[in-house]
């Protein structure tokens, strides 16, 4: 018994120490499953994350907004694809946003979000993103987290090397992935080398309104332009684009475009281009493309068609474009925070090629050329290269920077991130990713001032990482701590669609500007209903306009008679609330589009075309108050030739 009690005492003591150490882990020596890792990503209920991560939705055509380090999803922003949840592309106000020269296009493949910058730092105003398939660039407001501007790109194939911004968002670029005949025409595909060109568009961004316009295009040889990044500090004024298929092949590119030992990074001196533009050395090419923008006052998208674009031909504009030979079909084109180094990731190799901006200028100065392509000087490879990162891994794709002298490169084939030192080019650390990483992102990691605390790996394949959901599995992001010498995996989280690139920004740069509601007094929507007493129904032939209001928890009018089969009924619903977080929804039975989701102070319009006689209910879809379930109404639909009087009311029934 004595023995037992002493044993118990000892055991108790051991367990006690175990408790202490269990509760107070130092966090240095632990692996991925220990509780200190959990605490690094744990954001307690009710508290904010430190960063926003704005992640592309790939073939969903959307952008999603997460918090870091928690990986919590806050919002999916519809950009290039319709979104019935928010009525985007279904209500009359946003339909014009998806207009193109091909008509209404309800989908795209969105790859690269890029934040607006001021002095080379993210400024929290806007995020841009490219539409790859029907070439477009969109601008999303970080006040409202809504799409405000979409511009189509003429003379372009897939808009892939896009939309990378210059230091003060002077330009957002859009380089074509697929070269095409310019202008488009019916020619033999085999006439590629003769007829095909690659357009690199420079989109001007109005610093006040954010409105985009195409300033000029540089007409390049018919290569595939892959990715881009702008110069910084001394290299401000230059834009760098990677290219592949310098073989100018049009079939079985997987083999045929992998022949040349070196392709090019195209260095475009856009300040020089501006000089040529001012001198009138451009051609005005007739074309047709669409620019759509959100009219803030009228609260609706406006679509306009533009019929010409200014183009610059490098062979006629000396000193504007140079080629930097870069091995093995370079993909990522990343410029370090100082602006001195341009990193080309030869995706078919194991190495990274780092060019020096200073050496590039020297080579240009000394005319140290290796011939030219279509009149564009090709710089001597040895003259521009600062260093090569050897054996980083297999299939290098993209590089971001931590602002502390290190770079981080994703390797697709070997599924890993490699950390290397700028200047010595030595690999200092590596960490596996699960699986097949594409892009990677450090908040501010492509700007002059990275926040080098976290890195997010954006993975194409998840296989066994999450519960299976049939044949289609989620893609994922992985959060990696890069604050110490060794990278440390903290968290996996699934993403909406395929995450290509992402951007991160300190929450403190965005939160203070976040819009809470729209002021009714500023609502200049042509079908706005300022108060309940202004609610009414107007008929113009077979077009019926319902001026309706909503507030917790009723619509006005909520009873309508005199609608006829064959009418086009426009419900213009104004949300009279003037408070944070009180949207109302509106849905009517048989509507062939979607619901409305109306923010406080806004007006939205749903088109409804009743097919049959009857009394049809409508209701609020967004739970708004304890009496939300009472927020409903009826529309009486009569036969085409009926003479039911047009009447409407709320509350007491009218005199019968």
């Amino acid at each position, binding site marked *: 018994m004595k023995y037992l009690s002493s044993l118990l005492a000892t055991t108790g003591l051991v367990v006690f120490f175990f408790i202490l150490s269990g509760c107070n882990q130092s966090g240095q020596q632990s692996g991925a499953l220990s509780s200190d890792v959990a605490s690094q990503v744990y954001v307690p209920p009710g508290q904010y994350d430190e960063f926003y991560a704005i992640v592309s939705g790939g073939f969903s055509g959307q952008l999603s907004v997460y918090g870091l380090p928690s990986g919590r999803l806050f919002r999916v922003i519809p950009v290039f694809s319709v979104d019935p949840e928010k009525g985007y592309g279904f209500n009359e106000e946003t339909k014009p946003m998806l207009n193109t020269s091909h008509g209404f296009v309800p989908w795209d493949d969105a790859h690269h979000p890029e934040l607006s910058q001021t002095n080379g730092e993210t400024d929290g105003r806007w995020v841009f993103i490219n539409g790859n398939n029907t070439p477009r660039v969109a601008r999303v407001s970080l006040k409202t987290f809504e799409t405000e501007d979409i511009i189509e790109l003429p003379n372009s194939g897939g808009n892939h090397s896009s939309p990378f911004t210059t230091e003060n968002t002077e330009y957002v670029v859009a380089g074509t992935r697929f070269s095409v005949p310019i202008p488009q025409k019916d020619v033999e595909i085999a006439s590629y080398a003769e007829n095909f060109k690659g357009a690199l568009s420079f989109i001007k961004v109005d610093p006040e309104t954010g409105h985009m316009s195409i300033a000029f295009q540089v007409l390049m040889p018919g290569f595939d332009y892959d990715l881009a990044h702008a110069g910084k500090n001394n290299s401000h004024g230059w834009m760098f684009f990677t290219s592949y298929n310098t073989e100018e092949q049009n079939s079985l590119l997987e083999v045929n475009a992998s022949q040349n030992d070196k392709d090019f990074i195209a260095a475009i001196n856009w300040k020089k281009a501006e000089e040529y533009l001012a001198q009138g050395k451009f051609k005005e090419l007739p074309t047709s493309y669409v620019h759509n923008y959100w009219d803030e006052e009228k609260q609706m998208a406006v679509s306009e068609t533009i019929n010409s674009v200014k183009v610059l031909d490098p062979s006629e504009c000396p000193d504007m474009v140079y080629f930097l030979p870069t091995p093995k079909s370079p993909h990522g084109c990343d410029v370090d925070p100082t602006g001195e180094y341009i990193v080309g990731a030869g995706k078919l190799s194991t190495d990274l090629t780092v060019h020096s901006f200073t050496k590039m200028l020297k080579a240009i100065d000394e005319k140290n050329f290796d011939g030219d392509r279509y009149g564009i000087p090709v710089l001597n490879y040895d003259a521009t290269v600062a260093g090569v990162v050897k054996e980083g891994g297999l299939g290098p794709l993209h590089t971001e920077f931590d602002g502390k002298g290190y770079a981080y490169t994703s390797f697709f084939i070997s599924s890993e991130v490699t950390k290397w030192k700028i200047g010595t080019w030595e690999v200092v650390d590596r960490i596996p990713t699960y699986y097949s990483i594409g892009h990677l992102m450090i908040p501010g990691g492509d700007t002059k001032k990275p926040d080098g605390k976290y890195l997010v790996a954006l993975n194409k394949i998840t296989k066994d990482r999450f519960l299976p959901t049939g044949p289609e599995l989620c893609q994922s992001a992985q959060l990696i701590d890069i604050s110490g010498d060794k990278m440390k995996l903290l968290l996996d989280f699934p993403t909406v669609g395929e995450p290509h690139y992402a951007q991160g920004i300190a929450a403190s740069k965005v939160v203070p500007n976040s819009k809470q509601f729209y002021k009714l007094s500023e609502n200049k929507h042509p079908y706005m209903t300022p108060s309940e*007493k202004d609610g009414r129904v107007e008929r113009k032939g077979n077009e019926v306009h319902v001026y309706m209001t909503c507030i917790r928890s009723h619509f006005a009018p909520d009873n309508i008679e005199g609608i006829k089969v064959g009418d086009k009924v426009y419900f213009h619903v104004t949300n009279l609330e003037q408070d944070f977080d009180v949207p109302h929804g509106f849905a009517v039975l048989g509507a062939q589009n979607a619901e409305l989701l109306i923010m406080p102070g806004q007006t939205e319009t749903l088109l409804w075309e009743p097919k049959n006689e009857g009394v049809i209910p409508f209701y609020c879809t967004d739970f708004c108050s304890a009496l939300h379930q009472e927020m409903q109404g009826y529309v009486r639909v009569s036969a085409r030739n009926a003479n039911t009087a047009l009447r409407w009311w709320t509350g007491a029934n009218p005199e019968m």
Partner: protein
Amino acid sequence: MKSIALKFILFALVMAAFSACGSDSNAGAPASKPKPKSMLADEPDPMNDKGIGPVTEVKLDPEVDQELAAKGKEIYEKMCTACHKPEEKFIGPPQKGVLERRTPEWVMNMILNPEQMVKEDPIAKKLLMEYNGSPMANQNLTEEEARAVLEYFRTL
């Protein structure tokens, strides 16, 4: 037998250790202590209840400021009539004679700070239930606008 007992004790101790850690990590979360109160017992004389919010004192001139009241009427019609009618019960109560039932401070706080009022002010809490839980919407009026609306109520 002894070893089974020991294992059991160890197990219990380890469990205790886990739960100790568990409660530790919850220590940061604020403990909410609901205070059950009798609504009636707490209810003050309405003419002494100034409500909860930014307005602590309103001095009413014996003379109604007609210009201010007209401005208040305009604001009331634009921002309030979706739920209120001056002289009859609608979604919310009527405003006619409200200053015989409530203090001017209470009225302005109800306009400017309705979320907290319906949670914490005993009269507002009771009104919320009387009107079927229909919330008093915060229409984000400025203090000047709410003051104008109050002046309009004096003319009803």
